[in-house]
């Protein structure tokens, strides 16, 4: 199940990109996209996103094991879900992992990104090396770390002062730590790339002016670079949050939601219910709840950050 979910990846860049219109060409509309251009994509989206979403919504009011015919059960799945302590726990864990991801990856990727935007020697080579984890599939990364963290033959067996008896997957705190670490290891390069591009786009004239005013490197970083990275930071954080809410493969392979239900995040819980316990009704309810939650959180982030106003960071520069 999981393999084909993870392997079929369309090349998806930051989604917000599609909103930006190309600059209007002067006086003529030749070559400008009309609505007709959007028809294939819209059809595709309707068929593979909207229709299934509606079906999932319908399924969330039914009881279905995949074999017999679905049976309408009203709010049953939803009330079960509300009373389910594991569901509540899974929401907590999902939020925790998401916050951990943002907190760990943001500073790391800003520092790396700004550094990689410079002109140091060996920078290109090192950048390529940093980038490698992103090229591996989450599945491969998870299998790799599961093996590297084997308590008897992996890293913990050598570094006992840090890992103790190496029971990383047997306790909640360490299991979550491993999940956060592995995600950070894999996705920091991607966000580094965003910040690298953004840092390169900061006009040099600002730094030149700052130098004349006698600002040092740290002042320049905090007063020029960081503010100029604001919009990129929002893009990156939205991606981190949406990604965090839908983390799946790392949990599937590293912990299977265990020990017990200690790392059962919502997306995994949905899989567990729908595809392992063959209870598609409640699985659909979880899925729908997740879609709603992710949408709301994304909207809040966009609104709070002012991203929707599309303010340019170039204001007052040129």
């Amino acid at each position: 199940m999981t393999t084909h979910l993870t392997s079929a990846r369309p090349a998806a860049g930051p989604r917000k990109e599609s909103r930006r219109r190309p600059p209007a060409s002067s006086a003529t509309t030749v070559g400008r996209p009309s609505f007709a251009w959007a028809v294939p994509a819209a059809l595709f989206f309707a068929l593979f996103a909207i229709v299934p979403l509606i079906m999932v919504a319908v399924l969330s009011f039914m009881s279905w094991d995949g074999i017999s015919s679905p049976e309408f059960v009203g709010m049953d799945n939803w009330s079960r879900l509300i009373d389910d302590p594991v569901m509540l726990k899974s929401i907590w864990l999902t939020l925790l992992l998401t916050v951990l991801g943002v907190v760990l990856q943001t500073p790391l990727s800003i520092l790396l990104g700004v550094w990689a935007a410079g002109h140091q020697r060996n920078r290109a080579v090192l950048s390529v090396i940093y980038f490698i984890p992103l090229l591996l599939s989450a599945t491969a990364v998870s299998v790799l770390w599961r093996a590297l963290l084997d308590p008897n033959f992996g890293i913990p067996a050598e570094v006992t002062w840090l890992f103790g008896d190496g029971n990383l997957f047997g306790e909640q705190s360490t299991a979550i730590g491993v999940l956060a670490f592995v995600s950070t290891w894999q996705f920091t390069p991607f966000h580094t790339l965003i910040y690298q591009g953004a840092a390169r786009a900061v006009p040099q004239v600002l730094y030149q002016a700052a130098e004349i005013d006698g600002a040092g490197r740290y002042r320049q970083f905090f007063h020029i670079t960081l503010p100029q990275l604001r919009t990129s930071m929002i893009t990156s954080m939205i991606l981190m949050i949406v990604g965090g809410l839908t983390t799946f493969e790392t949990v599937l392979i590293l912990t299977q939601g265990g020990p017990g239900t200690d790392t059962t995040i919502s997306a995994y819980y949905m899989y567990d219910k729908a595809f392992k316990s063959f209870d598609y009704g409640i699985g659909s309810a979880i899925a729908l709840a997740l879609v709603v939650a992710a949408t709301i959180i994304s909207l809040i982030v966009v609104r709070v950050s002012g991203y929707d106003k599309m303010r340019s960071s170039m204001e007052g520069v040129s």
Partner: protein
Amino acid sequence: MKTRARLPRLVATGATLALALSLSACGDGNGGASSDDGKIHVLVYGDASNKIEQQIVDTFNKTSDVKAVLDTIPGADYQTKLQTIINTPQAPDIFYNWGGGSIKPFVKADLLLPLDDFIKKDPGLKDKFLPSVFNSAVVDGKPYGIPMRGTQPVLLFHNKKVLEDAGVQPPKTWDELLAAVGKLKDAGVTPIALGGGDVWPTQMWFQYLYDRIAGPELFAKAIGGDKSAWESADSKKALDMISELVDSGAFGKNYDSVKYTNGGSVQLVASGKAGFELMGSWYYSQQLTDHKEFAEKDLGYTAFPTVEGGKGDPGNVAGNPNNYYSVMKKTKHPEAAAEFLKLMYSDEFVKAHLDIGNLPTTTNTDKFIDSSATPEYTRFQYDLVSDAPNFQLSWDQAYPQKASSDMHKAIQQFFNGQLDTDGFIKAMQALPTE
């Protein structure tokens, strides 16, 4: 963290499947027409045994007008995909399963053909198989499966050298095992290797202890729907003994971080860092692949120890009696299917399986064992299984598939102390039995 939203795609996949399934369900209901291309499709779990299945199919096709086609699904995905296609026109005619609970929902949905008529015409379809094995695919008194691979009893393996160095004999009784654990701990090794990260190896300890202490009746009762079985004194005694074993440090402290499936626990035993491991009979060939020298020289094996005062026959075994072929009710070629199943007790079949280390459960297996690759080991297993009054199918396969995830959670949580006895009993009582 993640670069793309996975959820919509997950949802989309699920719902597209749902769409496809419900459409097809509307189209032809249960007994509807499957696409008939004049062939019978045989669906199996994809692994090393497939080459023999292909060989059997080829043999069958030489004489049959209706040709058989072998379809395989890679192991980990088998159960999910089977469940997805079983009630669609893409369903196979004959398919691989674990008997017991793994086919119960299909029987309930009236998808499977009871094999009584086949057996009436050819009693060999029943008589040529070991009864304890054949019975694992009997649901509600009717046979629904023919054994089609090798038997996989769970055995207690050990590292001969480690035991010798610690002055330990392979244990015959539970007390001897406890004593061995103490001595092995003193010798500085993990007494028993356990791939707790996979959970099903942990489950093996439950299966055997319950069977030894309470006999097979307790589990039969529980799975029959009488959930009071889990509250019985015997059940509590078994749980106490498991706790005692875990608390004594028998499995070390990090068993939940160790996996069998990535070779972690296998290597623990092979490298002499652990003394014992409880595992299915496939363990031998696993060690032979991963650690050839160790497997040939120092790998020992015994049956699970007896438990004094236990109600279960000490000869009982647990594990997977075999895998089974079941026949879909809507197959267009039942006669051809019956003919195909007869090959499962043929000499050719038995020899081919023995050659790759599988142990078929037919009555004619006996005469070919001595010419097999590992006669001593094969003979040990064969005697164990054929003398066993009862062969307990792995709990997670005996229960309906939908119960296995919650069962695994309860087992892991009890083992590592997250659940107490009452909590475990409650969790087991909450499992669906049909």
